[in-house]
């Protein structure tokens, strides 16, 4: 898989943190000695480290075990991609899905046992403090026009506890932002909005997997609204020390949701009418401005195989199939986003 394709896939499926880990994964893939290490169980992990670097003692063991953790993380990411991708095939192979899901569970259990959820964020090596990224995420998720003033207010006040809950709820959303930042550097704010709306995909992955495909963007935007509002109220009192446990819990919740979604759609397809009405209810209080953004970006939906840089090329007024009104809307949104991105990038 080339990096370009993975970026797009990740954007759509909300498994964005994979983008950052791709280099490690590929490195592991090309280095033949690594898979051997990877296949050894937990029991031998530390003894291997000690064998390899007897002189360095503890330091050596630590390096070896962190390499093991990185490989374990990349295996987890690979598995999650496989789970999501295989769900999009015409005929998902149930046996394969079950085996991959079991592998994911196994990794998660081991990581929980090790207490190594910290490694997940450490290994990413992301720049900037968590709060900055989270603020950006929330703002990008929010609907542009009605709350454009609100976004600035939110930026100012300390919303860290609330935003933290957002991270735990959609685990990958903060990493989603990584790609958004990269894209912005290419000076295309429109893509930023697109990616922003896709950020919301990460929260409720279920909606990516409705039969028939990559759902229309508007649904995802609306889900983001809903999830953000829901989680904000509940988890105001989250503290940093509880980060590990919360993340584990949310991870397991998210994963059980993942499993449910993977296997559930084997069932859902029989009773899809029920889930449709539930979705309708969710979207009843939708903010209409998103539809304008959506129509402007419709061009991208029809060409899913293009990598991100190609997307940037294609996004121009000449390709936009929209009216003047929506363009004006987008302009104000883009200015808003421009401002926010400046803050993040620190220019």
């Amino acid at each position: 898989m080339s990096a370009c394709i993975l970026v797009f896939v990740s954007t759509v499926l909300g498994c964005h943190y994979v983008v950052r880990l791709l280099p490690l994964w590929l490195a592991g893939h090309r280095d033949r000695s690594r898979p051997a290490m990877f296949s050894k169980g937990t029991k031998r992990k530390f003894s291997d480290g000690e064998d390899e670097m007897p002189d360095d003692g503890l330091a050596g063991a630590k390096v070896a075990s962190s390499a093991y953790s990185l490989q374990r993380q990349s295996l987890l990411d690979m598995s999650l991609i496989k789970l999501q991708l295989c769900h999009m095939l015409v005929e998902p192979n149930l046996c394969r899905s079950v085996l991959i899901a079991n592998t994911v569970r196994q990794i998660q259990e081991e990581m929980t046992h090790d207490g190594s959820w910290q490694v997940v964020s450490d290994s990413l090596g992301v720049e900037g403090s968590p709060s900055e990224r989270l603020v950006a995420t929330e703002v990008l998720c929010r609907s542009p026009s009605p709350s454009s003033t609100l976004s600035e207010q939110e930026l100012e006040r300390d919303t860290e506890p609330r935003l933290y809950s957002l991270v735990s709820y959609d685990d990958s959303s903060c990493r989603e932002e990584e790609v958004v930042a990269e894209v912005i550097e290419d000076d295309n704010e429109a893509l930023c909005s697109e990616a922003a709306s896709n950020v919301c995909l990460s929260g409720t992955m279920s909606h990516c997997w409705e039969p028939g495909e990559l759902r229309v963007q508007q649904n995802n935007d609306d889900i983001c609204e809903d999830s953000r509002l829901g989680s904000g109220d509940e988890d105001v009192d989250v503290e940093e020390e509880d980060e590990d446990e919360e993340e584990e819990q949310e991870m397991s919740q998210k994963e059980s949701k993942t499993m449910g979604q993977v296997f559930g759609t084997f069932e859902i397809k029989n009773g899809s009418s029920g889930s449709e009405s539930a979705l309708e209810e969710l979207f009843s209080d939708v903010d209409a401005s998103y539809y304008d953004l959506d129509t402007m970006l419709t061009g991208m939906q029809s060409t899913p195989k293009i990598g991100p840089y190609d997307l940037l090329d294609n996004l121009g007024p000449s390709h936009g199939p929209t009216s003047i009104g929506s363009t004006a809307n987008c302009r104000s949104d883009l200015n808003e986003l421009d401002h926010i991105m400046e803050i993040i990038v620190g220019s």
Partner: protein
Amino acid sequence: MGEDGESPKINHSFLRDYVTEADVISTVEFNHTGDLLATGDKGGRVVIFQRESESKGETDELGESGEYNVYSTFQSHEPDFDYLKSLEIEEKINKIRWLPQQNAAHFLLSTNDKTIKLWKVSERDKRPEGYNLKDEEGRLKDFSTVTSLQVPILKPTDLMVEVRPRRVFANGHTYHVNSISVNSDGETYLSADDLRINVWHLGITDRSFNIVDIKPANMEDLTEVITAAEFHPQHCHMFVYSSSKGTIRLCDMRESALCDKHSKIFEEPEDPGNRSFFSEIISSVSDVKFSHSGRYLLTRDYLTVKVWDLHMEKGPVETYQVHEYLRSKLCSLYENDCIFDKFECVWNSTDSVIMTGAYNSFFRMFDRETGRGVTLEAWRESSKPRAVLRTRRVYTGGRRRRGDVGVDKDLVWA
């Protein structure tokens, strides 16, 4: 593709023009005498080959001829569409099983993911001639021209093989059918999908009995699927099914109507030294076969074939390594999905030799008496009748001989 320096480079590209995806063979099955070989392909067709019988004196000494010629071809399954789920149903033939022969006709069962069909294969080499009311072309005669009566006589004609569908067993499975097995009672057969096993009567198409159901109430709790199932060759009440967790369950239909509770479970305890994240995946059993004697079971998982004694549940009595050199490549094989490939295994007629497939057109045969295994290559170019297949060796260390196949370059990434 594993060719060594000795053989000339064969250009296979011309074949690719004529061979399409639909021609890929997905299943093969001999009938009980070995005279007929049925193959199913991804395009839903079944091709039956018949052994050439030679009456030359020399051949009789050596045994039967090794040549098979096309006997009949028919379209078994067509691509279908499930409107409720908006999913295509593949026409690929997953399994073929012959029924024991009871008269001049042959019967076989073929199945795709959802529907099982019973086909009657019969020969016609005579036709009646001399009807009173019809002429040679079948048109009604003018009765005024009929002056005498005649008895129609059978005259030999060219051999015609007719294949007709006799039964269609549809709508019995929600998930993909992976196995069918004909019972020794000659009247029933089982079909297994990922989560359920049904027993059908060969004569009744609108009803089947569900005897195993491992679907959990909440699909989120699903951790195990059924991978293969087979009836016991002699005892019509016993069958086994294997799972993705590496267990084989023996069930007795006399115990209860629903055989969720197994009579015996065959499971090898995990080796803690070899444990990895892939342990479960490589332990998934892809095929299970009873021996002809009915005493042993043969199972195939990703790296090994195992022989189990029905009397001993705690572990296999024999384990043979098929391609142990892949154990260190599991991560890469997981990445490219090869780790999910399924291989079949089979006994010979005397249960003394077992055989299973591997990658790169290799297959492995193990002599149970000596415990030795041999690797053979199903190489197209040497496919003359009765030609001895070349044995191949996979280089895994030590002195490398000419002709050895390297794991990295040739086997895994080819």
